[in-house]
């Protein structure tokens, strides 16, 4: 974890320098920094995750409806960043916000939960798209998404790019739209630029394609 952290810090510093005026979307500071520096304990994480199970389910498989994402197997770094961003208000989530405030979880528990979730098997079937994306989905994904989210949707722990494989279709679709429309404020500005011209049909197609990826081998 130490090596990873050093790499993360260097990357973060680099991107902070690159865009000196606005804080980088992936800047490592505050709670995220504390969580990344913590050696998360999956046993404590399992206990701290318990109140989250009412929505994300006991096995963290989320909901096929897309109302709540699958969290099992997701990169711990990604989970820490999203939790920290929701707590700080950078990512708006009114449904979840009252259940994750800093009177509930410490930044250390954020690390515990993230490590616990990362280690869970991705067992349950995810909600898939209609499967009608044909070649267009692959074309769009390979051109616009694969560079960051990986050829098979595996994402990148080092760069905070989420694994999109085996995620629920409706959740993917909702978030892509939030990001395109600027409603997900903690998004990578590069991604907003890339998908700005996407039509509803493009979003459905690419979300459909991503939802068909099987869980990546670890």
């Amino acid at each position, binding site marked *: 974890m130490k090596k990873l952290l050093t790499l993360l810090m260097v990357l973060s510093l680099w991107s902070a320098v690159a865009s000196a005026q606005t804080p980088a979307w992936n800047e490592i500071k505050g709670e995220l920094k504390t969580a990344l520096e913590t050696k998360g304990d999956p046993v404590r994480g399992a*206990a701290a995750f*318990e*109140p*989250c*199970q*009412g*929505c994300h*389910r*006991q096995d963290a498989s989320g*909901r096929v*409806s897309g*109302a*709540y994402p699958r969290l099992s197997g997701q990169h711990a770094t990604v989970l820490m960043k999203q939790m920290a961003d929701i707590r700080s208000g950078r990512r708006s989530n*009114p*449904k*979840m916000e*009252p*259940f994750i405030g800093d*009177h*509930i979880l410490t930044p250390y528990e954020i690390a515990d939960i993230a490590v616990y979730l990362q280690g869970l098997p991705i067992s349950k079937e995810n909600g898939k798209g209609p499967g009608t994306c044909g070649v267009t989905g692959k074309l769009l994904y390979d051109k616009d998404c694969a560079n960051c989210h990986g050829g098979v949707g595996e994402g990148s722990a080092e760069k905070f790019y989420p694994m999109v494989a085996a995620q629920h279709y409706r959740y993917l679709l909702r978030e892509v739209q939030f990001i395109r429309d600027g409603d997900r404020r903690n998004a990578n500005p590069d991604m907003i630029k890339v998908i700005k011209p996407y039509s509803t049909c493009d979003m459905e197609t690419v979300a459909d394609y991503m939802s068909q990826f099987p869980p990546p081998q670890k």
Partner: protein
Amino acid sequence: MIHRDKNHKTTSGRRALGIAAALVLGWTFAAPSAAQDAKTIAATVCVACHGENGNSAIPMFPKIAGLQEGYIVKQLRDFQSGRRKSDIMAPVVAALKPEDFASLATFYSGQKLNPGEDADKKAAGFGKMIFFEGNEETGVPACVGCHQPQGAGHLVYPRIGGQHAQYVTQQLKNFASSDRSNDVNRFMRVLAKRMSDEEIESVAAYLVGLDSK
């Protein structure tokens, strides 16, 4: 000071009663242990509302058999400090010694909660869905997440399977209005506020018949 004296008097009176009862029943006389104290208090004080071994027969009073030890102690402390408000429980708990809380909790958590029969099958059916799925539209988490598939509870989350519908309904409404505010991390207040009356009454109807073992 007066308050404390009164407590003391009540306690010693009850203790004398307990010892007398023990003698009548032919128990070996010894300094009464905490566990015996708890049994005596249960049989003389709590029984009137909470029933034999904590299986209340009166729908407005909760069954307390099989509740988690820590949960019982917390509720008694909260009644005592006024964090949980109840005109009925406040004077009862004021007459108890805080030392009795732990042994009462051990006694009641060791009893078996007997479920009832769901009176309203239709409501129970909808309630079952809320219990396992919550409401995604309004962000009501599923009860099962914390209270477990049989409603047996876990850690700080109390057993709710088999509880009286009237009591559950009242508590959820109290959480929603913040009349009850002693929940951990405000979870129950937040989620009860998101529930409709129909959801509250239905989930309560489902819990009645849920055998949490």
